[in-house]
Each structure stands twice: as structure tokens, then as C-alpha cells.
């Protein structure tokens, strides 16, 4: 008799599950499309698009294809194969050349270290104490928060200068490092950038760069005068040069002429000392 009761309760439970199963439709709308898009996406689940993983992003895309122009997956933009497949799946055209961005660390890294730091070895912790242990309060601290967060492994720490350098070939411009850096050093620049400006000292009209570090911009305007192709404009408000990458022919006259070595060739960043660059930690 007790076995009969147990069997009866078991059967009742089974019946309830079956009823719920047929009442609650399991075919979520658009699941096939979501799975198709998920197979096209890189599957790294880096979270740079703002969604918790490639599957969630694919779900959002299957409901609203316009999302791909507002928050594109930067890795797909770089790979022409996946880009073509995604365009076909969503039925839209993406201007990859205009949307591609790369990260740039705006620091030349020659500000001298003022003290020894023995705290928690992350940039965020070091930046809490008077903005870091470098003479320039906006310098790169080189403890590698950006190195850890980069899903492509495109950032490495230069062992001589102790600053982070982004390899533009590996970088997909996802933007995770931008939010991670506590000194607001990293900026997403268009992929066609030719000349990089390596100073982060916030714009003032006096000459702060020279007294803080050897690489600081002194607002001397030599680069502006040296450019023969009118690719550099001088912004009077911020007293900084602005580069027009389309007119730039990569003659590198401005890089040579700059007395502070603040400018550099963006296309060669991270490649000169490839043998010596090691990852932080």
C-alpha cells in the first residue's frame, strides 16, 4: 500500500511536469536565427559589445538587426569572412573601414618615478594615491590593468619605459581597455590613423609637459609648421595639434621635427622592440 501511494504521487508529479511542458512552448521565437548568428560571432564572450556573452548579443541582434551599426562586434569588423556572413544573415551593409577603431595609449612614458610602490599591484589601486607614482599625474603606470582585460592579448608592457603599448594589428578596437584605465590614457582612434600623439597632459596654455617628463608636449607648434600637406591643424583652445589622417602621407616630418619626441608612427607601434616586449606579471 505505501508503494502504491508513492507510485501514485510519482505519477501525479510526472503528469504535472508533462502538462507544464506542453502548455509552455519551448520553441523560443527566433532561436534558429540566434544560433546562426552565434556561430558567426567569434565566441570569445569578451563583453565588449555590452552584452554578457556572444549568445546574448546574437539574441539582441536577431530581434533588432540595426543594433549592429550602433554597437558592432569589433572583432567581426576586422575579419572580412565573418563580416560577409554577418551581413548576409542580418541583411544589411556595414562600412567596416569607417567603423574600425584601434586603441592608442597616449603616453610616451618618460616621466620619472617619484617613489617605490608596494601596494596592490594594479593601476587602479596605484592611481588612488595622488594619481600614481610618476611625476606626471596623468602618466601610464605600467601595472597592466589593460593587459589583463584585453581579450586579444594586444597590449603589452614595454620593459624599459614601463608603459603599456597596443599592437594595432591585434587590436580590434573593442574598447574594454578604455574603461579599464584609471588615468583615462587610452583612446579609440580610427584604424587609418597614421601619426600618434603620445602625451596625455590635460590641455593648458602654459608649458606643463616639459617640467613633468621628457616626452611631454610643449605646444611649440613645430609639427604644425613642418607639415607640407596641411594634415595638421592647430587647435587654439586646447593648444594641441589635430591630425587629418586622410591628408597625411606618412612622410614623418612632424615626428622628426618634434623636439620632445611626442609624436610617433602609429603603424609601427609595438613592433620595433617585439623581441623585448613582455607581458606584465
Amino acid at each position, binding site marked *: 500500500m505505501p508503494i502504491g501511494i508513492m507510485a501514485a504521487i510519482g505519477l501525479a508529479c510526472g503528469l504535472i511536469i508533462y502538462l507544464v511542458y506542453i502548455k509552455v*512552448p*519551448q520553441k*523560443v521565437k527566433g532561436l534558429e536565427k540566434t544560433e546562426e548568428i552565434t556561430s558567426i560571432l567569434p565566441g570569445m564572450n569578451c563583453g565588449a559589445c555590452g552584452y554578457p556573452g556572444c*549568445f546574448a548579443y546574437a539574441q539582441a541582434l536577431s530581434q533588432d538587426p540595426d543594433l549592429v551599426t550602433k554597437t558592432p562586434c569589433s572583432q567581426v569588423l576586422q575579419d572580412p569572412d565573418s563580416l560577409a556572413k554577418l551581413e548576409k544573415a542580418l541583411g544589411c551593409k556595414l562600412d567596416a573601414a569607417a567603423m574600425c577603431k584601434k586603441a592608442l595609449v597616449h603616453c610616451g612614458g618618460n616621466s620619472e618615478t617619484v617613489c617605490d610602490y608596494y601596494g596592490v599591484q594594479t593601476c587602479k589601486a596605484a592611481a588612488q594615491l595622488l594619481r600614481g607614482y610618476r611625476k606626471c599625474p596623468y602618466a601610464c603606470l605600467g601595472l597592466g590593468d589593460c593587459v589583463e582585460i584585453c581579450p586579444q592579448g594586444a597590449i603589452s608592457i614595454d620593459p624599459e619605459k614601463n608603459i603599456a603599448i597596443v599592437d594595432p594589428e591585434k587590436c580590434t578596437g573593442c574598447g574594454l581597455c578604455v574603461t579599464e584605465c584609471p588615468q583615462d590614457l587610452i583612446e579609440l582612434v580610427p584604424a587609418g590613423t597614421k601619426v600618434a600623439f603620445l602625451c596625455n597632459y590635460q590641455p593648458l596654455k602654459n608649458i606643463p609637459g616639459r617640467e613633468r617628463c621628457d616626452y611631454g608636449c610643449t605646444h611649440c607648434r613645430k609639427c604644425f609648421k613642418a607639415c607640407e600637406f596641411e594634415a595638421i591643424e592647430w587647435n587654439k583652445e586646447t593648444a594641441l595639434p589635430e591630425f587629418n589622417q586622410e591628408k597625411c602621407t606618412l612622410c614623418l616630418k612632424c615626428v622628426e621635427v618634434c623636439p620632445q619626441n611626442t609624436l610617433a608612427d602609429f603603424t609601427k607601434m609595438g613592433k620595433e622592440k617585439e623581441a623585448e616586449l613582455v607581458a606584465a606579471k
Partner: protein
Amino acid sequence: MSELVAIFLGMVLINNFILVRFLGLCPFFGVSKQLGSAISMGVAVTFVMAIASLATWLIRNYILIPLDIEYMHIVIFILVIATLVQIIELFIKKTNLGLYFSFGIYLPLITTNCAVLGITLINATQDYSLSSSIVAALGGGLGFTLVLAIMSGIREKLELANTPKSMKGLPIAFIIAALLGLAFVGFSGII
């Protein structure tokens, strides 16, 4: 009323499921890496505990006791809990697919979770009334969620610390759990 408050407080702090009774340790160590998923897990377990308490109380008082087969309670409770978890899984899969995937294996693991079976057996052995059972279940679930939230907060901060390589991950989590348990012993004897 004061009895309900005493039961509730007892379940949340004094006889906390994880740190004092040592039940439900599997999701405690498995899901406590991030605050978001820890809270979701706690809410799911609370929900299962509450509904399971209700269902098992009804079955015990209206089927098992009148028919004098109270000794079958463990098996029958497990059946009921498994059914409930399956139904909840079907609902979560339909409404929020992302949450379903983020739980992974830990959602069906609530079925075999000692804490859920524990609350139903506590209700049975202490012979609680219906309101006391549900209050006890809610308290148990809240205590579970509380400790899960504390542990995930600590573990997130632990990522930054300089842990020795052999202690990274689970070993240091066990030690932290032991320290937390020691702290919670301070609550004993209040009621």
C-alpha cells in the same frame, strides 16, 4: 507572531543553512564567483524552498500522516522537489534564455541540494504549522542568499590580492568559508 519572528531570525542568522548547518555547500562554492549570479542563485533557491515547503507540508499533513506512512517522507519529498525544480527550469528556459545558460548545471543541482531537502525535513521533524513552515523556508532562503552574497563580494576582491599560486581559487575559498563560519558562531545562543 513572535514565534514566527523567532523562527525567521533563527533560520537567517543563528542556524544559517550554509555556515552553521553546513548544508548546500555545492552552489556556495560553485556560483559565488560573481555577485550577480550569486544573487540569482539565492533567489532561485529561496523560491524552490518556499514552494517545496508548501507542497511537502500539504502532502505530509493530508496524505502521509492520515495514512500512517510518515516513514516514506524522505523519498516522497525528493520526488516533489525534483518535480518543482524541473517546472522552474522549464519556465526559466522559456522566459530568460540567457539566465538559463548562465546557471548551467547549477539549476538542476538545486534538486539534490541538501539545503532544500533540509528545510522540508526540518519542517517535518519540528512539526511546524503551515505559516511557520513557509516563514522558515523564506528565512532559510534569505540566509542562503545572504551568505552567498557575502562570499561573492569577498571572492571578487580576492581576485586582486596576492594569493600564493597553489591557494588560488578553491583552497583560499575554503579557508575564507571557515573564517566566515567562525564569525557566524557568534550568533549562537541569541534565541
